[in-house]
């Protein structure tokens, strides 16, 4: 399991983090628990037990976070799509177990599309 390349990671004020995947034009807002798991992965810790120890989280929360990270396409698993599908199902189960969705995906339009397009007159004066 390895982290996807080319991601921009920024902290969120609640202790979580935001992972911007510009290639997919989407972002993922991680809750603090999932952010802890992400940071452990960044440091090379990949086993559930080790992550749980390093972060102080319950193992099932770590599993839920890993499943959601993989489901969001942020992890590259060598086991292929069957594992991804399994993890997606596991995410649902684990998420229900911890009672929390750990990652919220935000599909962002390109900045140009998101730009509030003023009419021509405003474009001249709304400097």
């Amino acid at each position, binding site marked *: 399991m390895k982290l996807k390349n080319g991601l921009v990671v920024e902290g*969120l004020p609640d202790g979580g983090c935001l992972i911007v995947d510009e290639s997919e034009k989407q*972002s993922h807002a991680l809750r603090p628990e999932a952010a802890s798991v992400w940071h452990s992965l960044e440091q090379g810790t990949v086993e559930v037990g080790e992550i749980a120890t390093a972060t102080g989280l319950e193992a099932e929360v770590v599993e839920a976070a890993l499943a959601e990270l993989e489901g969001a396409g942020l992890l590259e698993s060598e086991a292929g799509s069957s594992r991804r599908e399994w993890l997606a199902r596991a995410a649902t189960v684990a998420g229900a177990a911890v009672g929390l969705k750990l990652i919220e995906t*935000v599909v962002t339009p390109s900045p*140009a599309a998101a*730009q509030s397009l003023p009419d021509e007159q405003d474009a001249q*004066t709304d*400097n």
Partner: protein
Amino acid sequence: MAAEASRRRPSWWPSEIEVELLRGACAQDAGVAGEIWRRLVASGSLGALRGDAARLLPLLYERLCAAGVNGTELQPLRRAYAEVRSLNVATRTQAREALQRLVASGVSPMLLKGLAIDAMAGERGTRRIGDLDLMVRHDQLGVALGALEEGGWHATDSSEPGALVAKHSTCLRRPDTVEVDLHWVLSGRLALHRDPGAAMALFWGRARPAVYLGLEVLTLHPMHQLLHLLVHGALVESRATARWLADAWFVLRHARECEVADWRSLVDDVRSLGVSLQTWAALRCLDYVFPGVVPPAVLAELRASRWSLAERLLWLLDSRTVRQPLALDVVRTLRSHLSNQRFRALPSALLLYPRYLTANGYVVSPVQLARHVARRRRERRERAPGAA
């Protein structure tokens, strides 16, 4: 007292709920932000927020996190924060490319508006960078346009040298990229100054070097940044109904932290620029939203200034007052097209006017003018405080 102040509040000032939101979003004491948030939730008025006021939600979210507030009702705010922040990541990538091209061409770009506030705020994601507002010296304009056009940006209006000289900025677009608003005069209002070159020298003379996205750029002196927000904030054409107040508060706080909040020079500058009436009106609004933020002596001094007839007329035309006669709207619409022309060039501007309108896709016939005015009146009604 409060009721009296409310009755006397000009119609373009923010609504009650917008004031609450601004005070919560800008509260230095995070506990105050928490209290205001609970009041807003209890009143059920958050759903009535108009688009521009909703842009304050990411800033409010940051303050609420600092206050330790949590709960499911924060979810929309968290989402708004994440959206703004991720959009800004992409916008900064595009900004870096544009700035890099300018710097490599020997141009010293000055950051304005969203970019300038982003440079102040570092990695914070509370303020959406809507477009890339940059200013270059007039003698570097040709080089700057060439550098951006090499990068695929294209001016959307006439690029004839004469047309550019007569305006204050030009908009450049590139597919899938935010617009670059390239200024050589700070704002349309200041382009009306009797000597825009001298007015701009005031700003360039006190510009401050900064490093933004790893590039050496310039920013306005914080008090000039405040001046720019004040001059622009109360304009009828401005789309920023509440956001400019948060920006002004933020810039003023930054100026205080840097110990450069020099009100004396601000008063002198706005007088020399002929915008003391507009500045006074905007500062009154800022002081209403954030009581005590403006020294009373500054308000009194600006109030006592001698406002020229031209300044009064321009304020009448530009202020965001809702109830105005139709004739004034027609005059304003026509004047707004001419406002980018220098007064000294007025005769030639009048001669070129039909061509100017056609070139820019503006109104070209009385029917279109009527439609244009009707639309702008409707928009103003919709933006008015208390509008549904």
